[in-house]
């Protein structure tokens, strides 16, 4: 008897008509607005591009030093340097409209009205394929407030949902008591998908100077392979909490890393800090994932997903951690 294997379909449906050609995107803050390093990296291999955080008006960003390397990771305190939504919607979107890869604009506001205003500015703009609400930037005042309190997060998402038909991804902070609760709140408020996780709050001390390496309070966002196990746990938890697509982020540097997030329940992933030390990381991961799917006769990448019900002993750990 001949068995016919249905063809492999690498696409990912994030809702509202946004279908990614493959599950591999690049994370906000690690790929600029897509064109900065286009000559070096290329873009056509990507499933999606998540832009640098965009604010209502231009921001110069924080005073240097802005980055500090840590064990298998890095801290950043860039402070949302960006030209503001007007330039993004007018100049950058016009370039994105010519691209085969969807660009989702990462949006950061100081309060709900600012999130609404920025998204209104982006709504209906050719070249803008969606928005990723950054309710969790650790490097500006108030940014974390929306992410930590499920009610506030839901109000922000509902307000934005009311003014746009764009696909709406909400980027979750791991610096919360219960990420699942925030995920449920934003899903109920109308998010089409969630991305998890943003950076972990971290510090690096300069012992010889007896002070932090980063300026101000010395706190920055930790990213890179150091956070991968933490991010996997967060993604698995979010997966159990919501039915909408989950985009996994956190220390993905190799094909295996990306596939592990799909096992944990992610529908798509974002490659972040790895873009800095290996500009070809996203390309290698796309090619690696497609090769893996072929070798393992997958029909969809979701075939990889860990089926928790197959493990009757599994349940929420009683440890008081996220």
């Amino acid at each position: 008897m001949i068995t016919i294997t249905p063809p492999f379909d690498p696409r990912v449906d994030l809702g509202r008509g946004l279908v990614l050609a493959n599950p591999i995107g690049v994370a906000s803050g690690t790929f600029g607005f897509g064109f900065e390093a286009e000559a070096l990296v290329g873009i056509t291999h990507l499933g999606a591009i998540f832009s640098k955080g965009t604010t209502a008006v231009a921001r110069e960003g924080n005073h240097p030093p802005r980055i500090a390397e840590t064990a298998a990771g890095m801290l950043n305190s860039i402070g949302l340097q960006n030209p503001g939504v007007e330039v993004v919607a007018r100049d950058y979107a016009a370039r994105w409209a010519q691209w085969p890869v969807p660009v989702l604009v990462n949006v950061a506001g100081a309060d709900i009205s600012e999130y609404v205003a920025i998204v209104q500015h982006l709504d209906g703009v050719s070249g803008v394929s969606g928005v990723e609400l950054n309710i969790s930037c650790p490097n500006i005042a108030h940014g974390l407030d929306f992410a930590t309190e499920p009610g506030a997060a839901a109000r922000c998402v509902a307000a934005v949902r009311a003014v746009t038909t764009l696909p709406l991804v909400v980027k979750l902070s791991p610096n919360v008591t219960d990420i699942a609760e925030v995920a449920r709140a934003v899903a109920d408020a109308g998010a089409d998908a969630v991305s998890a996780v943003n950076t972990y709050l971290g510090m690096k001390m300069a012992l010889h100077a007896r002070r932090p390496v980063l300026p101000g309070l010395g706190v920055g966002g930790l990213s890179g392979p150091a956070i991968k196990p933490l991010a996997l746990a967060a993604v698995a938890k979010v997966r159990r909490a919501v039915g909408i697509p989950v985009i996994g982020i956190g220390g993905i540097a190799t094909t295996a890393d990306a596939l592990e997030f799909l096992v944990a329940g992610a529908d798509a992933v974002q490659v972040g800090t790895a873009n800095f030390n290996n500009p070809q990381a996203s390309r290698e991961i796309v090619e690696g994932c497609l090769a893996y799917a072929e070798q393992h006769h997958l029909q969809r990448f979701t075939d990889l997903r860990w089926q928790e019900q197959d493990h009757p002993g599994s349940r929420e750990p009683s440890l008081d951690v996220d």
Partner: protein
Amino acid sequence: MTPLAGASTQGLVGESDLSRAVDEAAECTALQPLQGNLFEIRFRAPEVARRAQPGQFAQIWVEQSHIPLLRRPFSFSRAQPREGVVSFYIGAVGEGSRRLRRFSPGDSARILGPLGRGFTLPDRPGRSVLVSGGLGAAPFPLLGERLLERGEQVVWVNGARTQSELYPGELVPNGMAELVQFTEDGSQGRRGRVTAGLLPSLKGADRIYACGPNQMLAALFALISESAFEEGGAPQLEVSIEAPMGCGFGTCLGCAIPLRPGAGGEGPVVGLCCRQGPVLRGSLLDWERLLQQPEHLG
């Protein structure tokens, strides 16, 4: 910093051409230990060697592991296209450079480059003065060679705190009109800072190229701005500056540098050392803000 109009890195003072950069598997061909923690390391990287220009830099992925995570930026000290070899003059001061110091011939690394904007080479021969402090000597063997090839008269004024931090005279390219060495403690060459004893060497200079600590570069810029030059005006100054760098190609926004108000449009602007620099005309930098930046502690 407060939100400002024009806080864009686009279309300011020119950007590096990333289409010329390649990420090449490179093999160490030699490592020459120098005094103190200094060394020169050579790699076989034919594509990078063919493209590298003076003042540009490479991002070296020392070990393709997670520690250290980021590549390390180093200016090209030499680039020999025919041999396919690039060299870097490095002080073993951090995790990445200490690991490079332990390299042996045959060891491999990935070299991404050339990155950044280099020095402007003159169209017509004249007199160039190179001014460097400490590890700021790194780009000048290559710049000196390329200037000499063009028939330029080249003077190099180089300084360091002490002899063990001074670029070795025997590595200086042949053919320089003059090499003046300073140490702050007088352990080699003339005693004092480069900027204190520099003026006589600047006489008749058509252009000045400088690389070193920000304090030194700022003092040099002030010196040139305040000095009375004969007809023809002050020589053109290009400086290569340093900033803590993540990616090296403009996406991490880690290496912000303050540009002079109006340098690229309305209001104060932020540039990136890796794209608008590392070499910039001295007049484009906001020196006051640059000097306010705290030292990077790690």
